[in-house]
Structure formats: C-alpha cells, structure tokens
C-alpha cells in the first residue's frame, strides 16, 4: 500500500514536471527541471527495485546531460521564442500515439504480477542460475557483463561514437570566424572563489575514490563501469570549472583522453578476441581461466574496466569540447 502511494506521488510529480517543462519558455529553468525530472525518475526506479538504473539515471540525467545542456545554453539564447510552438498537427499525432498506447494497455499483464512472461521466461533463468554460472550476487551485473555482454560492448561503442561525433562537429578549429585566442578559455569559470577552490580541493579526492569504489564494487552492489565513469568524469569537470580549463587541459590533454577512450573500447574488444583466439566464442569468459567462475570474474572485471575507461574519457571529452566551444563562440559575440 505504502509503496503504491509513494509511486503515485512520484509519478504525479513526473507528470507535473513534464507539463511545466512543456509550458515554460525559460530554457535555463527547463534544463533544471529536466535534471529534476531525471532525479525523480531515479527515485522512482529505486522504488521499482532498479537500483543500478536509478544510479545511472541520477548520474546521467541529473548530472552530465544538465551540464551539457547548460554548456549549450551558453551559446544559444536563454529564452525560447514566444510563438515558436505550433500545436495543431502535433496534438493530433500525439493524441493518436496516446490512443494507440491506451489500446495496447488493455491487454497488458498486471503490474507487479509475479507470473508475467517477463518474470517467467528468460529472467527466471538469470535469477536461479546466475549464481552457479557466474557467481556474483548482482544479477544485473552478471546479465550486463556476461549473458548480454555483447550488448554492453555495443553500448560502449555507442558512447565512443558519441565522443567521435562531438569531436567531429565541435572539436578542432571552430567552423568559420573565430579569434585565434579567446580570453574566455583561459579564465576559470569562478576566478575569485576562494571558498569554492578550497571545498573542491577537499571534495575531489573522495569523489574519485567513490568512483573507484563504484567501479569495483559493481559485482556486489549497484554500480559498475558506467556509473563509475560518469562520477569520475564529474570530478574532473568540477576541477576544470573551479581551477580553469587551462590547467585542466594541462593535466588532461585532449589527444591523450581521446586515446584513452579508444583504449577502453579496445580493451573490451580484446577480451572477446582473446576468447576467440582460445577457440571459444567471442566474449566467452570461460576462455580466460580453467575455472569457470574465476574466468567469469576476470572477464567481468576487465570489461567493466573497459566500460569505465571509455565512459570516463568520453564524458571528459564531451565536457571539455562543449565548454571550450561555448567559450569560443561566447567570445565571438
């Protein structure tokens, strides 16, 4: 019952937020609301027992994507044009979509029912067998990194692709007019914030530590390469914001990070290659060790590492490229 109430409250919160986002013209507040939206949905995921997802959603939705949005906001205008909405056709389409979904809703299996196909077919195998086959308590991790590890490889590549895409579009010389040097870039976002500097100095190490914890504790609790990567990146982003991009860049030169991001993917891939070379299927961790379980452990450890590396580097990449570009064209105007 209590769960029911919480869910309802959270969900209605979400609807409320979505409505506000749809209505407000102030993009900055929309960004904030979006972050909030992700936060709330993360909470909802927790109540749905999807802790890993919640973790990720919080880190990504509330963290990185808001950050990127804000960076983009530095270039684009803060307010939306008043008359830029043309609802007529949109409403029709949306309405149709909704009707279709409601129609589909009628035959959906009961929510929370333990006998739905979702529970019966494949998942049951994971729940019952994974301990024997993989030997780590966190099923999500075992499915993610072993049963469906190929999906995760794809996921890593997706991130990598995004990094490449952003570099290709924003990286390097800005298209067209741009001052050879823009003071914005060298200036830290908060030049004279002693307090900020001190506190950040205090916080950054624990954040990184936490990231490592998340990375390597993924087998036992919520977390894993992806969440860890995002957190790690967040730490560096904080550093960059407080101590200025110049210094951040000196510490983490772009080519190096780019290289690292590639290394992550390659690490993941080469684990698969190794198992191929040992005559097993791609990403079959049994190839890594005589003992099945230890093989699985090693494999999962390595691929999670790969994911972590790639995500970290790409996130940093994104943040640097975005904010740098933002300052450049900020310098233009």
């Amino acid at each position, binding site marked *: 019952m209590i769960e029911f109430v919480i869910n309802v409250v959270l969900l209605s919160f979400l609807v409320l937020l979505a409505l506000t986002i749809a209505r407000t013209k102030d993009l900055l507040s929309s960004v904030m609301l979006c972050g909030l939206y992700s936060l709330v949905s993360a909470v909802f995921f927790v109540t749905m027992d999807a802790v890993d997802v919640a973790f990720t959603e919080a880190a990504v939705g509330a963290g990185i994507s808001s950050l990127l949005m804000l960076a983009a906001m530095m270039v684009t205008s803060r307010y939306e044009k008043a008359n830029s909405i043309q609802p007529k056709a949109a409403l029709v389409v949306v309405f149709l979509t909704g009707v279709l979904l409601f129609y589909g809703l009628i035959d959906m299996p009961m929510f929370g029912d333990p006998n739905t196909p979702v529970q019966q077919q494949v998942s049951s195998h994971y729940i019952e067998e994974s301990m024997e086959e993989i030997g780590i308590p966190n099923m999500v991790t075992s499915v993610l990194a072993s049963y469906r590890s190929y999906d995760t490889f794809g996921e890593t590549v997706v991130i990598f692709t995004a990094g490449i895409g952003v570099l290709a579009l924003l990286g390097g010389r800005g298209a067209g007019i741009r001052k050879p040097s823009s003071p914005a870039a060298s200036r830290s976002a908060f030049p004279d914030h002693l307090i900020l500097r001190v506190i950040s100095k205090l916080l950054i190490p624990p954040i990184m530590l936490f990231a490592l914890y998340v990375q390597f504790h993924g087998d036992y609790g919520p977390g894993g390469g992806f969440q860890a990567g995002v957190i790690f990146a967040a730490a560096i982003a904080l550093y960059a914001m407080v101590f200025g991009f110049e210094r951040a860049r000196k510490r983490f030169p772009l080519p190096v990070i780019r290289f690292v991001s590639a290394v992550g993917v390659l690490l993941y891939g080469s684990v698969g290659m190794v198992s191929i070379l040992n005559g*097993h299927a791609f990403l079959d961790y049994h190839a890594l060790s005589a003992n099945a379980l230890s093989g699985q452990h090693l494999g999962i450890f390595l691929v999670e590492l790969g994911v972590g590396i790639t995500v970290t580097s790409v996130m940093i990449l994104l943040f640097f490229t975005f904010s740098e570009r933002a300052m450049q064209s900020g310098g233009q105007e």
Partner: protein
Amino acid sequence: MLAHLPVLQVIVPLMAAPTCLLLKPTRLLWLFCVMVSGLAFGISLLLISQVIASGPIVYELGGWQAPWGIEYRIDALNAFLLVLVSGVGTLVLWSAQYSIERELPKDRQLYFYIAYLLCMAGLMGILATGDAFNVFVFLEISSLATYTLVGLGKDRRALWASYQYLIMGTIGATFILIGIGLIYMMTGTLNMQDLAQRLPEVAHTRTLFTAFAFFIVGVCLKLAVFPLHLWLPNAYAYAPSVVTAFLAATATKVALYVMLRFVFDIYGVSFSFEHLPLQKIHLVLGLAGIFAGSVIAIYQTNVKRLLAYSSVAQIGYMILGFSLASEQGLVATLLHMFNHGLIKGALFLALAAVVYRIGSAELSQFKGLGKRMPLTMAAIVVAGLSLIGVPLTVGFISKWYLVVALLEQGWWPVVGLVLLSSMLALIYVWRIVEVAYFQQPDGEVVREEVPLGFLLPIWILVFANVYLGIDTRFTVGIAEMAAQSLFGVQS
C-alpha cells in the same frame, strides 16, 4: 577461425574504428580503412558461400545459449545484404580518399573515417544479429555515426539536415524500443527465434498489435517511407558526397531488412497480413511514394536532391513488392534492395566525382560535362538507365520481378502505374543527360577526368550493374532462397 566469421564480420570494423585514432598520416589511415572494409567484404563472401552450402549459421556470443545470451544468425537474407553493405562500403571508401580531401578540412578527416567504419559496423551488426534488442543497440551505433557523417557536410544546411535526421531518427528508434518493449512484455524473451515461437500464443492481444504498430512506424521513419521521408532529401543532398553514396546504397536497405525480419520471421505472415490492413496501407504508401518521389525529383535543380527524391520513389517500389505478401513479391523486393543499392551507389559515387571536379551538384553546372569528364558521365548514364529499368541492367531485373509478382495477383492497374512511373524516372534521368551532353557549355571545355583511383570503384559498380543484369543466377538465386526461408518460417 571460420567458425567465428559471423562475429568477425561485425567486430573487425568495430574494433578498427578506435584503432584509427592511433594512425597518424591520413593516407595511411585511408589505406587501413580500405583494407579493413575489404576484409569485411571478404568475410561476407565467405559467409554467403557457407550459407548457400550449408544453411543458416548460428553463433552464440559469450558462449551462452540462445534465449539467455545473444546469438548471431546468418541466413540467406542477411548474408545477401551483408555482401551489399560491405561491398559498396569498400568501394565507396576506396574512392573516398580524393573526395574527402576536397570536401573536408584536414582535421576532420580522421573523424570521418572512424565514423564511417562505425556506421558500417553498426549496419552489419543490425543485419547479423538474432536478438531483438541487439538490433536497437547497433541501430543506434549506425545512426549516431550517420548523424556525424551528415553533419560533416561543407554546406551549413548539412547541420540542419543532420539535426532533423537526428530528431526523426531518434523518435523512430524510440518507437522501435517501445515496440520491442511491448513484445518483450508479452513474451518475456528477446531472441528472434524464441519470439517467433512464443508470439502465436499471444497473437490476438491488443498489446501485441500496438507493439506491431509502433515498430512498423519506427522502422518506416528510419526507412523514409513516403510520408515520413522528410529528413532524407536534405540529409542526402548536403552530406559529403561519398557519405551520400554509402547511405543511399545501404542505410535504407538495412532498415527495410529489419522490417522484413520482424514482419515475416517474428510476427509471421499470417499475423502481419491477415489480422492487419498492412497490405493495403503499404500498397498505398508505396505507390504514393513512387509518384510523389518521382514527380518532385523531376523538378529538382540539384542533382543530389534529384537522386535523393528518386531514392524515396525507389523505396516505394520495395514497399510495393513487400505489400504483395507473396513470395514473388518478396523476391522482387529483395532483388530491388540489392540492385538499387548498386544503382544508387554507382550514381552517387559518380556524382561525388563530379562534385570533386566542378565543386557542385547543381544541374546548371553540368553543361558540357559529357565532354569534360566523359567516363564519369558515361557511368552516370549507364547507372541512370539501370535506374529507369532498361533491359540488360539490374534495374530491369527487379522491375520485371515486381511486375510479374503484381500480375500474379492480377493487379493490372498497379502494373500500369509502375510502368508509368518508370517513365517518370526516365524523365528525370534524361534531364541530367540532356544538360550534360546536348547543352553547349559557356566556356570551352577541356577534358579533365577524375583520378583513376576514383574512377575505378565507380566503374566496378557500373559493371556490376550491367553484369548482374545479364547473369542473374547469383542475385535471383539468393533472393529466392531468402524469400522461401522467410515464408517457410511460419508455415
């Protein structure tokens, strides 16, 4: 190693992409990429030969059995398309070197090659996989790479086109995700074979219908079926020329493949065509697409746009064959998928050569091109004839099959329309030819062909157009094999 071909097909380019970051000079980079994609092509050939020899190949990734792990399943259908994608991909990449140097700043070329490989790998991943969700993942890889590639275009409109494509594409992908989710909800599995077995139990449910609808709409967005085609012309027109060549030849085909796979293999003909008005809808959409596309194409002044709209029309043909829900019709569709890949590949590649030389794809710039770059223009003419469907070219073969399939169903009027539409095709191809050959250029023309390395891939494609139009055993054989298997699954 042979046992691992299915996965290597995808993994090789996928792993090669990050490796590119380690290579310094662009030339070396190019060489590397060509070799990689060439390797992929070789693999695909081996695969198809294996498939022909000994039926579908199953490969269990991670060594986990099918419903629990992800499996790759290569049969005639996707082996066929794998050959197309890797083959065209290689040829385009081969000629990319020159065109890219012209159209991209130096510091972007690296990213171009990486994104290109990723896109290719993504497409092949979609083709190879036997897992519904894995389709989505690789769909996204290829899509993101594609947005990047399109966005690299020189013209600022490329950015806008890419953005539109991104929005449309993501909506499509999300729809597909919803579709897959609902299917999963009803069956509890993601493996295609498994799904095919479990779906009949719940075939009557409304949820499944919704899932189907969402899935089809999503794919149609990616596929640029007529009313949802709006992103395509801009994307094709403003992307770097070679990118256009690659996309036009492969991307839409792969999307169509996904549709075929789900409609025939997973849902099964009985569900798709008996419970639903799919047939009529697609018939109408197909015809509408054919005519709208062709007619708009006639009025374009930019050749790239012109061909882009013709692509919309050609997709209409495929949809038409698909809507017949007969084995013949399916053969026609499959043939046209493959053949149109060859045709458009050749045309856009030749166009890239033109752009490389005269820096524009505006029709007005084509004056006297017949003398200025005879070989390139000759290629365009031959490929154009193939596009119209003149006998002794691949275009004729697929049209012929389409017509025969239509007659089988006794759809006379449609046959008439198809023939009429090829007249329209004739008109827009003719416009190019007329300007290039029969309009006197302003200045006096000097003959300046593109470098041989550029010309060779074009002509290989053109040759393929003619050869496969004469010796149809390979294509038709495979297509029929695939069609039978698609129909066989649910019987």
